[in-house]
């Protein structure tokens, strides 16, 4: 793997190429795809959490003017594969969670479809359900692996003995809430089944990966992948919830196949997204730290309890970041799951790292407090020489640099460590820090093609732009890899008609697709030198990573928190994130990614919680009035900086993924700042005023 030699486009803060179309409203999103005579699909959802549908009376719905079809387990086609039970919709009458799809109406308008759906009368044979996650359940089990493919448990040395011998210890339980991804654009699909020949299915779907969606849908319907085309030029946010197709995509395709030749549109409502589009499991994290008086860690343990669905297992890798973050000779990490009558959890921005850097990073702050040591210095004291566990050298690791740079920018050196002693007007003031990390991931399959068209260079790859900047950054990479001005490079993405691309997940997009583009450019240049004729074309395939190295991005998050002396209201007027994430391809889109992640981390710290009522089994605050997301008035000064980092091992661009690291550690930094402000350790998110009120005078 070699560096690109002359960088011209890479590193420039070019504006988004898709920006004008989005601002003007001409960018076409999935649901808006111009299709004549489209029909509309509205799901019907179960109102019990477990049991069986005993009767579905569709008479009134079918009698309604404008209703085209009603899909039920009795009328829907048998799917070729029901292996993924989340997607095996309308195949039987069993109900595994509240909100599950039990029927769907197809109608000439969305209004009629929705009205008809409300007219379907359902009777149930209800069974007792179980939706309550607790750490003391007696049916917790160890999954075989945790997402995506990590060992469930790890042990090094003897944690119990080290804890018993440690001079200073921290033992606490932390928890993170259930969260829903809630992208602005709902999960939406337009679908058309053309019965001509062997038939072909076209899906205009809001997805983080057109090729993975095609592969999944082809398998579910027993089609050749060549029969399925998935198109998605723009995505109005996904945060992982569009990384794998959910049932809405299957339902749209089922409807399309039930009414051949007629396009279908299906957009989930916000309320439906709380049952059908994935979420992050709540986590309960039992953490133990042992250290010498000088702050050297001697024991580090995290035991995680979280939930999954009886429908389909998803085991969030919450304990994984603790395996590599700090040096410790004794270490244990475990994951245990409760399988509940709930919808399947799934990916949400930084699965594993996001919740898994809450408990341990607050525990580090608690340890610093007990040691009487600065929390920045405590982290630096425990910097490992090689990756703990694997023993591999880091391709680059600049956590210390991030902490030092952040300390200087934030004014950390003047910090009085005592909690609850600073007051500004009616507010108690505190500051906090936490570390951040995210792995550098590369997916195994992606191909890019570069072609000369007239005086343009066209790069094609079925990549996704989630609002992240792919349209722009891939052009920058292609330009430098070809050695041509970026203004002469066109990018075409978001369509399975282009070469195969991996999912936009695990912050792997730039590493994977960018590497394929560099390979294609290399092939193109070696074949055509500097004078490619019109129509000249070459392809490149992403190569496996250099597995001699441990590759991670790092960061340091600093927060200032204010706690109101009368009411306990918590505000965060200042956030600073300093990141070491390799070469930054485009500072403008990168900054947006970092501060977007940090804002989502602030949201997790102060606001977000999906309230699952165990009596009903559904999230009762399933709209934006009650599921609070940090809004403009909650964010004041927010700043992302990055260190110049040269890493020759990660990929040809020297870049690390930046889509997720911004959310990692933010909530811990805020919790640590709240403690510093008012003296209360909030170990259970979100940090709401009722959790600090008792400590105010």
């Amino acid at each position: 793997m070699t560096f690109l030699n002359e960088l011209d486009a890479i590193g420039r803060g070019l504006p988004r190429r898709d920006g004008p179309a989005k601002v003007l409203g001409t960018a076409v999103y999935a649901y808006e795809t111009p299709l004549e005579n489209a029909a509309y699909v509205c799901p019907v959802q179960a109102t019990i959490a477990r049991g069986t549908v005993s009767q579905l009376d569709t008479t009134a719905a079918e009698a309604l003017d404008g209703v085209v079809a009603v899909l039920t387990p009795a009328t829907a086609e048998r799917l070729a594969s029901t292996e993924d039970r989340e997607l095996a919709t309308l195949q039987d009458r069993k109900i595994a969670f509240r909100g599950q799809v039990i029927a769907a109406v197809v109608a000439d308008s969305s209004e009629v479809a929705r009205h008809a759906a409300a007219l379907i009368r359902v009777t149930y044979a209800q069974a007792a359900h179980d939706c309550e996650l607790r750490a003391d359940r007696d049916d917790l089990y160890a999954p075989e692996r945790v997402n995506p493919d990590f060992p469930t448990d790890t042990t090094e040395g003897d944690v119990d003995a080290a804890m018993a011998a440690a001079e200073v210890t921290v033992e606490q339980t932390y928890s993170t809430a259930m969260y829903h991804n809630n992208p602005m654009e709902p999960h939406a699909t337009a679908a058309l089944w053309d019965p001509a020949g062997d038939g072909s299915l076209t899906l205009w779907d809001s997805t983080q990966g057109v090729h993975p969606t095609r592969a999944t849908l082809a398998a579910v319907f027993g089609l050749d992948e060549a029969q399925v085309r998935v198109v998605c030029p723009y995505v109005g946010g996904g945060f992982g919830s569009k990384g794998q197709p959910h049932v809405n995509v299957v339902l749209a395709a089922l409807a399309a196949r039930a009414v051949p030749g007629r396009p279908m549109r299906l957009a989930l409502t916000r309320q439906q997204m709380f049952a059908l589009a994935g979420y992050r499991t709540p986590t309960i994290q039992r953490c133990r730290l042992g250290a010498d008086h000088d702050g050297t860690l001697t024991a580090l343990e995290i035991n995680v309890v979280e939930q999954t669905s009886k429908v389909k297992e998803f085991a969030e890798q919450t304990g994984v970041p603790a395996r590599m973050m700090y040096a410790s000779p004794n270490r244990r990490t475990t994951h245990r799951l409760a399988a509940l009558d709930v919808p399947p959890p799934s990916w949400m921005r930084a699965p594993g790292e996001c919740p898994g850097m809450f408990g341990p990073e607050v525990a580090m702050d608690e340890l610093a407090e007990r040691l009487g040591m600065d929390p920045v210095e405590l982290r630096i004291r425990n910097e490992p020489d090689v990756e703990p566990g694997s023993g591999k050298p880091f391709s680059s690791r600049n956590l210390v640099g991030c902490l030092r740079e952040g300390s200087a920018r934030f004014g950390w050196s003047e910090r009085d460590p005592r909690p609850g002693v600073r007051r500004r007007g009616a507010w108690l003031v505190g500051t906090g820090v936490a570390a951040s990390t995210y792995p550098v991931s590369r997916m195994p399959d992606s191909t890019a093609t570069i072609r000369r068209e007239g005086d343009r260079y066209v790069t094609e790859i079925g990549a996704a732009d989630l609002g992240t900047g792919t349209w722009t950054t891939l052009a920058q990479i292609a330009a430098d890899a070809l050695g041509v001005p970026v203004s002469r490079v066109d990018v075409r993405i978001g369509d399975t008609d282009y070469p195969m691309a991996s999912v936009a997940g695990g912050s792997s997009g730039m590493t994977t697709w960018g590497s394929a583009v560099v390979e294609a450019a290399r092939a193109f240049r070696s074949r055509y030198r500097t004078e490619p004729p019109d129509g000249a074309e070459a392809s490149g395939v992403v190569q496996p990573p250099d597995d001699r190295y441990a590759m991670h991005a790092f960061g340091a998050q600093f927060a200032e928190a204010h706690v109101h002396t009368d009411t306990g209201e918590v505000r965060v007027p200042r956030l600073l994130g300093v990141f070491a994430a390799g070469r930054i391809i485009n500072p403008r889109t990168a900054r947006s990614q970092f501060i977007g992640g940090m804002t989502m981390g602030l949201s997790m710290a102060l606001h977000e919680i999906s309230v699952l009522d165990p009596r009903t089994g559904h999230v009762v605050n399933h709209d934006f009035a009650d599921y609070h997301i940090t809004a403009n008035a909650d964010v004041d000064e927010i700043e992302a900086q990055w260190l110049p980092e040269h890493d020759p091992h990660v990929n040809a661009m020297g870049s690390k993924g930046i889509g997720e690291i911004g959310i990692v550690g933010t909530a811990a930094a805020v919790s640590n700042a709240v403690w510093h402000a008012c003296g209360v350790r909030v170990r259970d998110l979100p940090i709401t005023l009722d959790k600090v009120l008792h400590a105010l005078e």
Partner: protein
Amino acid sequence: MKPFDYLSPTDAAAAVRTVAGDPTAVFLGGGTNLVDHLKLGVVEPDLVVGVTDLLSADIEELGAGALRIGAGAKNSELAADPRVREWFPMLSDALLSGASGQLRNMATTGGNPLQRTRCVYFQDITTPCNKREPGSGCSAVGGWTRNHAILGASEHCIAVHPSDMSVALAALDAVVRVLGPDGERTIPFADLHRLPADSPERDTVLEHGELITAIDLPARPIARRSAYRKVRDRASYAFALVSVAAALEVEDGVIVDARIAFGGVAHAPWRAHRAEEALRGSPASVRSYRAAADVELADARPAEGLDGGNAFKIPLLRRTLTATLRDLAREDAR
């Protein structure tokens, strides 16, 4: 959404006759709450009668320091009115602390007090709710009660009234002017909303077909030094966990008079008469404010539920009232 007919009569009297003659008909003002309910199936009227254009949007002076606010006046216009800001700052504060700029541009003076509870179980037609379907049971009891009542609730309903504006109007002794099939009548604002008792389906004392045409604000010099303090789970765009509308008059360190109402804690804006009484004649001190809060909250009861229920609201309201009065007295001393 069930299809419905829409009518926009030529005058308010015709609108009242139309709605009174159809038991499922509803008035449509700014639509900021009703349209949500139509989409969610919370209400399924056969007839929707638009009234915004039929109602005065004027804010007129009724003699020195008194105002008549047309029911069609938008929340944003009312909040910005210089007389409201000078004579009744708590009302302007309350309006501006509610909803969003966009919603305030739509919501009307007549409609705002008639918005319905945001109880998540009321708004979800798949869960039982005595307010939506009398006799079906209250899902909020033992459920997610963070945003529910601590005062005046019943076993049948623990919902709270969500309006900020109404809290100020209750404290300001406002009067509601109503047009019904049998003519006009007036209702003291503090009597407009009901406690749930055994009929939570009725939010107010209005009869079907009665239309609010205006709200009168009597002259209240005390209100020139007044404030609305709203405490919520994020800095903007959230309903109150608790709120306090308060006006305080202090002379020589002694409280002469007070006007206080609470929001976010009961099925109606909660006029704190007992606290007002306790304050009159007391020294303007934090000790007096706390004592007044204790008197008013003597009957407060938390609603147990998920995540610890809402017991925190009792100390929170006590602290918020104390702080609001303390700050008003300080302002008064300047």
